[in-house]
């Protein structure tokens, strides 16, 4: 009963500001009307003060009562196309004691959520959306997946108390309203002040309610699919979020600048998850506390213990196996969700298999300035822009003439020479790698969890980097590098590299000048692309 009292208190407190404003408006207008019947001249004088106040209050009320519609994103999953998934969701909503969603969208995020469009500080709900993260479908079992969905749906359940659902809704809308109020506007700032102070009290008062609701949602999930599957699902969420982050920022975009995306992204994601499985064991064993600005969740470990203590066997029959089995022809759907989460240019990328992607992305990442360097060599020597032209220019002692334009003040001699050395080293290394890749002397391999790896044919017992170092040293020595190139890619045999870079951009995002983390471990010199 205490819980019911708290819930009612919350609803009342949340409505108190808008109600008070409404009462004030009605009172002011009523007073003015009454004044008009008594003395029209006085009433007009009064109206001079009343009308702006009522307008301002009305505008404030409008801000509060305004609709909150969640921007719907992701790929719609229609019932006639995916009847099995919809049937499961309906069944889970029923077990959770709430209405099924009005629509389901598959999104490229590592979580699931139910959102409602609301009016009047969340007191009225109009439409319910279920968002399902594609990585969850790819990695969870059907039972784990069902547990996550039940938990989300159960937030809107009225089973515990008459007002639990409405209170949850209000809390979300309340915070949302606070966040969208325009702080530059004096009246809205006043409203913000009022709401924050009445709301701060209630938000704190509702902490226990919130925790209780979280436990109720956990319980609903356990009742639906069993304690074991629910616990397992909760343990998987953090590893999936982490591996998805790694995947999207590194693997997915490895060929981005060269114009490529993987054809079968989710097969790659699943291989990454398998490769990271042991590394993420810590997250699985000791899941981090969720940070949700709307709720103060009890620690996950405590929740897991509570779910295990229930030892619920589960009531909903969920097919065995991976959650992918719940979808008809799942891969195109997951892929569409993935593309939906990327910038529009993603649709223009060529889709290639992972080995090709690793090769193309790897070579592109290493040849960012190769064309520029070869062009400079051609300009200096009057010969075609080829790798051997560059080597001849280096042998002729012309390294210093490659220096890129200094930024601002002119460089001192050593700085200028060093800039040239680093610049040519990068371009030369890229040209050598591209030429040897074309000649088949370098092979590129997938090497999950790294982005990829290049392997020089065992016939050549050489350190590529060492050979390139020697070629740009002072004095230069290109003999060993030439010998390797002659053996692997004879100048008159196979085609020599003339640059494959896609534009002259550096594929990396700009890093901080100091500090920062080491890049994700990748193959020899290969690095990830620009995050999408």
């Amino acid at each position, binding site marked *: 009963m205490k819980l019911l009292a708290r819930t009612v208190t919350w609803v009342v407190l949340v409505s108190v500001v808008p109600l008070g404003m409404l009462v004030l408006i009605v009172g002011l207008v009523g007073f003015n009307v009454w004044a008009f019947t008594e003395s029209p001249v006085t009433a007009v004088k009064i109206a001079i003060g009343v009308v702006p106040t009522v307008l301002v209050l009305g505008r404030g009320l409008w801000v509060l009562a305004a609709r909150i519609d969640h921007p719907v994103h992701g790929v719609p999953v229609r019932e006639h196309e995916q009847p099995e998934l919809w049937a499961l969701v309906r069944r889970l909503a029923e077990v959770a004691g709430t209405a099924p969603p009005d629509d389901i969208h598959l999104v490229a995020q590592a979580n699931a959520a139910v959102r409602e469009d609301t009016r009047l500080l969340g007191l009225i709900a109009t439409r319910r959306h279920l968002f399902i993260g594609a990585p969850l479908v790819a990695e969870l079992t059907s039972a784990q997946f069902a547990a996550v969905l039940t938990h989300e749906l159960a937030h809107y359940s009225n089973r515990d108390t008459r007002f639990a659902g409405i209170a949850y809704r209000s809390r979300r809308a309340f915070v949302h309203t606070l966040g969208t109020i325009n702080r530059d506007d004096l009246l809205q700032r006043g409203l913000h002040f009022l709401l924050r102070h009445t709301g701060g009290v209630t938000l704190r008062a509702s902490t226990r309610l919130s925790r209780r609701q979280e436990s109720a949602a956990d319980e609903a999930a356990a009742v639906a699919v069993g304690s074991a599957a629910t616990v397992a699902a909760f343990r998987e969420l953090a590893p999936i979020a982490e591996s998805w982050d790694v995947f999207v920022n590194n693997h997915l975009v490895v060929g981005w600048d060269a114009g490529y995306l993987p054809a079968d992204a989710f097969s790659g994601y699943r291989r990454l998850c398998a490769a990271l499985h042991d590394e993420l064991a810590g997250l699985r064993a000791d899941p981090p506390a969720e940070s949700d600005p709307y709720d103060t969740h009890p620690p996950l470990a405590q929740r897991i213990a509570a779910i295990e203590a229930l030892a619920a066997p589960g009531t909903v029959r969920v097919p065995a196996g991976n959650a992918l089995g719940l979808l008809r022809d799942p891969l195109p759907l997951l892929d569409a969700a993935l593309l939906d989460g990327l910038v529009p240019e993603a649709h223009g990328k060529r889709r290639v298999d992972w080995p090709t992607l690793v090769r193309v992305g790897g070579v592109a990442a290493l040849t960012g300035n190769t064309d520029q360097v070869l062009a400079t060599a051609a300009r200096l020597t009057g010969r075609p822009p080829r790798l051997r032209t560059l080597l001849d220019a280096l042998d002729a002692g012309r390294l210093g003439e490659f220096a890129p334009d200094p930024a601002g003040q002119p460089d001192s001699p*050593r700085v200028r020479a060093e800039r040239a050395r680093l610049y040519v080293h990068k371009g030369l290394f890229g040209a050598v790698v591209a030429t040897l890749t074309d000649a088949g002397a370098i092979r590129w391999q997938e090497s999950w969890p790294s982005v990829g790896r290049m392997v020089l044919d065992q016939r050549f017992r050489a350190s590529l980097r060492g050979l390139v170092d020697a070629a740009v040293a002072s004095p230069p020595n290109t003999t060993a590098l030439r010998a390797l190139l002659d053996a692997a890619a004879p100048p008159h045999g196979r085609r020599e590299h003339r640059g494959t870079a896609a534009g002259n951009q550096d594929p*990396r995002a700009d890093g901080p000048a100091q*500090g920062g983390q080491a890049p994700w471990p990748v193959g020899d010199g290969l690095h990830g692309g620009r995050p999408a």
Partner: protein
Amino acid sequence: MEAAPPETLIALIRQVDPAVNPAEIVPGLPDLPAVDVTRWGLPPEQTLSTSLSRRIPVVSAAVAAARAGDHRPAVDLLTRSAGDWALRSVAVHALGEAAADDDTWVRSWRAVTGEYDPHLAVLDAHALFWLAWKLRGNKPGAATRADQHDAFHETVVRAETAARRATELAPNDPTPWCTLVTLARAQGYDPIAFAAIWKELQARDPLHRTGHEFALMYLSPEGNGSYEHLFAFAERAAAASPSLAFLVVQVAYDLEDHDERVWQDPRVRRALDVLLTWLGSATGGRGVHANSDRSWAAYGLVSSGRGAEAVPLFAQLGTDAAGRPWEDFGDNAATVFDSYRRRACAATT
């Protein structure tokens, strides 16, 4: 609205914060005060020098010879400075910069002594540290090109390798350990890795000034972090020796962008008193770091509203506007130095 006359604005600003430079608050106001510093016996602004190597004649002579291609005075200086770690760190810092600009003299030195000369190894490492910064340039991160960031990071890695090698060739020398401390922030060492380096430096010279100075930069929080641990570090060092009291002023200087009131902090007031006493002593007033201490003390005194006490320090600094804190203002170093002098002089009237 009628514009208030500059004097009124200045008076208003002074009321709010007597230590602040009005030109920093309202652009266009005279970079106050319009005083002629020569009346206090200070050299005119045009004669100021920001060259670090000029401070100590023996160092400036070695640097000048090195820049002219003669390595011998530098070799002499480095050989003689073994054991005098304060002089050595100043010499290595100044010669390192010269070597980063042009290493012709280093190559001729190497041709004579070979690869395994400990002094050469120590210098090489510090020169690479300078080279990394020169490759990067001193613009903020966003205004620095990707290839400059890359060059910086690649060269910092080389500097670390070279410094590690120098620690092996010169096992008693704290200087290469100090170079590693200067690289700590760029390399993003974790606290354990940093502590290991710090321990080695402390074992060789527990009061190593440059090491402490760069350790403070490593410990300095990004953005609006807490400065309490910085104060704790600086106060511990200052308690160990007044030669390190400047560190507390350096913390305040780090913090002032976030909290101007730091200059009224009693810890800063105390440190300035210690620093003044130290500079008045025979040891403190004559060491190789004396002018560096004077610069920090002068900056701190003016900022704390004790400008009058800074005038004698500026008189002793003369034309020497080199080193920190001034050099942090890049091309404006001499201008900033001069504006602090003016504020100091104005405070005496």
